[in-house]
């Protein structure tokens, strides 16, 4: 998967409205993590699960590039 493909999928997630049930920040983080782990077949470290991983996008992106060998 190329960096551009990774970015496109991350943007796809961000473009979608989040359901009301994720007004709970902790749960929103879990929701996002389920999406990321499923799509990219990775296991996020707990520190990326403690808050919305998309709130730390550069860190998340770097993790994905390293984990799945983007490029």
């Amino acid at each position, binding site marked *: *998967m190329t960096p551009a*493909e990774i970015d*496109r*999928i991350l943007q*796809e*997630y961000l*473009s*979608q409205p989040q*359901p009301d*049930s994720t007004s*709970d920040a*902790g*749960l929103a983080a*879990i*929701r*996002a*993590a*389920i*999406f990321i*782990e*499923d*799509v990219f077949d990775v*296991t996020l470290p*707990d520190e990326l*699960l*403690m808050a919305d991983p998309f709130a730390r996008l550069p860190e998340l992106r770097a993790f994905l590039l390293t984990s799945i060998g983007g490029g």
Partner: protein
Amino acid sequence: MCGICGVVSDGAPPDPSIVTSMMAQLCHRGPDGSGYVRDHQAVLGQTRLAIIDTVGGVQPLANEDDTIWVSFNGEIFNYVELGAQLREAGHRFRTASDTEVIVHAWEQWGEDCFNRFNGQWAIALWDRKLRRLVLSRDRLGVRPLFYHRTQHSLTFASEIKAIFVDPRISRQFDPIGLGQVFSYWSAIAPTTVFSGIEQLPPGHLAVYEAGSLTVRPYWTIDFPPRGQEPSQDLHENIEGLRERLIVATKLRFERSDVPVGAYLSGGLDSSVTTAIIRNYTDAPLDTFSLRFEDASFDEGAYQSLMAEQLGTNHHEVVVSRREIADVFPEVIWHTETPILRSAPAPMYLLSRLVRNFGYRVVVTGEGADEVMGGYDIFREARVRSFWARNPHSSLRDRAVELLYPWMQRNPSQTPAFARSFFGMDLDPADPAMSHRPRWNTTGTLRSMLTEHVRARLGDEAPAALQLPVSSASWDPLARAQWLEMTTLLPGYILASQGDRMLMANSVEGRFPFLDVNVVTFANQLPARHKLFGVDEKHLLKLAFADLVPEAVRHRPKQPYRAPDAASFYAGGGPDWLAEVLSPAEVRAAGVFDPVQVSGLARKAATRSDRFGNTDNMRMLAVVSTQLVHRQFIADDPAVHARSTAPEPVHVFDLVNNESEQQR
């Protein structure tokens, strides 16, 4: 929609009176007339629900020189386009029916014709020159087709009760078929719950020739390798789905010579198909809904919202517990198999409402959950996989709250519940991991079986179905979809809860989500577009956001359920209940342990209102199994049949070279 039946023999010529008795058993599937064709080796029968070319489409029907005959149940929705191609190729048509397309398509394309059909069918073709019978069933199993073999003959029919009119065919339970019901919710084709009775698997054809039967697939459910889906673009896929579903829905609404209505459940799927009809066709629309006296099962508010928004002529039936119990024996007469929920009974009452309003055809939203990724079992599997990646993480427990929002209000219960839920049958390497909890929960029914039946089944846990070799490269969601499309969909959703409950009242169901172009397209989608994280049917919601209000698109998913065991004890309960649960009848059936059944019945009599899922399932399994035994094995099912086939009866006697219409 119709009933088909017949006998082919390479020994003594088949007896036409057997086939007319079979036609009488299939009267409910085709009350508008019937017919059979006979020659020295075969008799093909048919009962007709006239929908396309209501006058000219009499069956059985032949090609130009009467060498190929067809008996057909279903619809070929693209018959107009195929007919044009066949006329171009020189075939001469005598009718405007979709049935006639089948014989010419067979002549033109042979077995490949089935891959060209877009529809729902069970077909019997008799090639008189080759002395060959060909049976075919639609790709996903909308229409049923059963058969019985002897050394020198094959008997087939849309329903098993028609096969049982032949007194030479024995009627007894097949423990293997029962075991499948008590694991997968239905017998898996070719097995049925009756010994010696087989069903043609969906997407297959069977060729019977010179006493030999060959069964093979003409189509299989397939998915691309994960990550190699043709389009990764969300907007392109939204447009692709919308375009195909609109075409599929219009095709099913407009290709009929009688008015077509629509089911409106209050959920997303039927709201989409109904909204398409209202926005893309001009005809007035009658919609039909099922409501419950039990508020916890009722979806009336959402149904009214959609009916009002779309301006349909809306009708509803409100079902009580007692009505479910009252019709239950008749429901089992039509399902011809034990069932683990009462949900088919209200569907029977709904199709009766449709018929009472004079309708013979309805469009429904069935199939969307399987095709677009809507079932809770898919979401649960994804959440369990999330937890399995790091079971020691203290943060992942909370994922269960996304499935069960009530957990958010009871945070203290979450960790214990989550560990129990996530840890159940958790093996990420298991290709059937998604379904293992359901199968194992259902499999607990086996503890109630008699020793004799248990011995036949063996003690092992239910085996996984054999997924295709290529499934190793599929997304886990695709594997779960495959399992759902090959077990629950054909065996229960489309059969016990679908075709059988509709046809019991002579109503044909049409299912846009099962259109071959919709299914093929959906199977090629990236899994995330169907199940977006834990948001089910995500693409469907996006594709029809302009036609279906937010309140319906994003309402909490409510699986279709009906009151189960409690139905049998409402208002004193029906008279037949104590009889079928009596130790004598339970012993006669030989399936369940009479002592355990008596214990369950005592418990139900006082506490059925508080029954959980397992006890409800046990009660339904026992009661329905006992009714199957009573109606199909202990009693001769022929006594329930009408004495005559639906009139007028068209007879094509090729032995005496005569044809006539009997009234």
